């Protein structure tokens, strides 16, 4: 028994695990809060495309400045802006729709990144870009995440009302004097900043998992925006840390374990949520609300009473 408990406590004794847990908590929380907007604005695919298309920016930063974090951040930011603006430009100036433009730019951009990396003097594993290395977080990584969280979260909390209005009914929000376009820009800015900061630490796939799964899970339980926002943050934090610990105990790749943990929690919610879960939907009697159910039960069998047609 003592040996078991000792093995449970084991991860907390290593410094690299302490850092990784801190990183997970911080990234998980920020991404989890932001995931509310990804789910409600249906930005998941856009976030995916954007995250992949950052590669050439990172590659050019590596060619110019090596692996310095500041350079990487700037490179990614510029690449994100170019891809987002480029897809807007194509969509506005031709009959090509924005998702087509974004999808095409993302494929080209990712490929350009691979070409650039192949001529880079610094050896960079593409695997690292996809999954990062949460066990090897540097001080600079942690600080970037911390600063971005401090910028992004208070901004989203302070702007809760205008953001909510402009997501729900943009035209009504505008008629009440909300600057809807500015709100969209702020949201995209927050998304790009958060994505880049977590990308360096945990890679594209993990960043995306953390950016979509938490609020999607809470969305299956709650009809409250605040519950999604804060619940998403807490779930992102707790789920990521849990995934990291599981990977340590079972000696499995950490990034994938975190994403899978978040995925399994989502799947459980999808099945078991009392209100919007699949199991409760399958077991519920169709179309019959409790009241009409009671009336139905009190009605004489078909053919014998005049009420039968009231309850078709």
């Amino acid at each position: 028994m003592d040996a078991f408990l000792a093995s449970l406590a084991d991860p907390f004794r290593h410094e690299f695990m302490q850092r990784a847990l801190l990183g997970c908590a911080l990234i998980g929380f920020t991404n989890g809060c932001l995931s509310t907007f990804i789910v409600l604005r249906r930005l998941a695919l856009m976030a995916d495309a954007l995250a992949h298309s950052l590669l050439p920016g990172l590659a050019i930063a590596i060619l110019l400045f090596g692996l310095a974090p500041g350079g990487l951040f700037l490179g990614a930011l510029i690449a994100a802006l170019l891809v987002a603006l480029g897809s807007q430009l194509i969509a506005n100036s031709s009959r090509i729709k924005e998702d087509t433009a974004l999808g095409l730019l993302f494929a080209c951009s990712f490929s350009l990144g691979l070409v650039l990396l192949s001529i880079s003097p610094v050896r960079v594993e593409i695997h690292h870009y996809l999954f990062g290395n949460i066990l090897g977080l540097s001080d600079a990584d942690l600080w970037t995440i911390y600063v971005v969280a401090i910028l992004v979260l208070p901004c989203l909390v302070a702007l809760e009302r205008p953001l909510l209005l402009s997501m729900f009914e943009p035209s009504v929000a505008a008629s009440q004097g909300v600057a809807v376009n500015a709100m969209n820009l702020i949201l995209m800015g927050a998304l790009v900043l958060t994505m880049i900061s977590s990308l360096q630490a945990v890679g594209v796939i993990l960043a995306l998992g953390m950016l979509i799964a938490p609020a999607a899970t809470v969305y299956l339980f709650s009809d409250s925006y605040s519950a999604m926002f804060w619940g998403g943050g807490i779930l992102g934090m707790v789920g990521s840390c849990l995934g990291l610990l599981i990977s340590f105990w079972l000696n499995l790749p950490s990034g994938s374990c975190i994403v899978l943990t978040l995925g399994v929690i989502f799947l459980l919610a999808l099945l078991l949520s009392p209100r919007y879960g699949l199991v409760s939907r399958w077991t519920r009697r169709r179309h019959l609300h409790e009241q009409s159910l009671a009336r139905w039960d009190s009605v004489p069998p078909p053919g014998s009473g005049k009420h039968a047609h009231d309850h078709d």
Partner: protein
Amino acid sequence: MAAHRLSIRNLTVSYHRIPAVHHLDVELRCGNCVALLGPNGAGKTSLFKAMVGLVTPETGSIELGGHGNANTRHEIAYLPQREDLDWNFPITVSGLVEMGRYTRLGWWRRFGREDARAVERALSMMELTDLADRQIQALSGGQQQRAFIARALAQEAHVMLLDEPFTGLDKPAQDHLSTALRRIAAEGNLVIASHHDLHTVPHLFDQVLFLNGELIAFGNTADAFTPENIERTFGTPAFSGH
């Protein structure tokens, strides 16, 4: 209350230099339920959008009880058609109605007792108190309409602009909504609703405003809802400025 009026003077609205509403001059008095009638492209939605400042008029002015448009943001509530609304949005009926207070509260101010009272009152006026905790998708079409009107009530708007509020409602739901709108008008507010089912006009509205690019006729339903005005509005193509 009775002194309130909405004056539209010489209003012209255009998109890309193509005019949608021309030199509209009309004065509406609060306390009425007005049908806005006209064929597709007659400028009904453009008129609404100009009233709430979503499009800038080419010429003319819209004044409510003597104030300019800038001061009347929360006096006028706009309820557009909601085909593209995400009905799964995580919001309940009371959450929706609370949104009506945002214009008064701004970004920061806490929700106070007065706000709670306004929300409660709006819910009970629209007979939604029992449904306050329902998610908005779990309502019938008529209840959804009334929930959005309750939000406008919580906003304490004096003028309500409704885009086709009766579309898709069956007869009992139409009657219910009409009763609610008349109650709002009776409290000294102005209700303007665009409407396309001419048969139900006399039953639902006190006044009619015929629009087809320009003003065709305006008056009490009993006087102005005539076959001639209907023919002049719907029988000829919209005046396009040429």
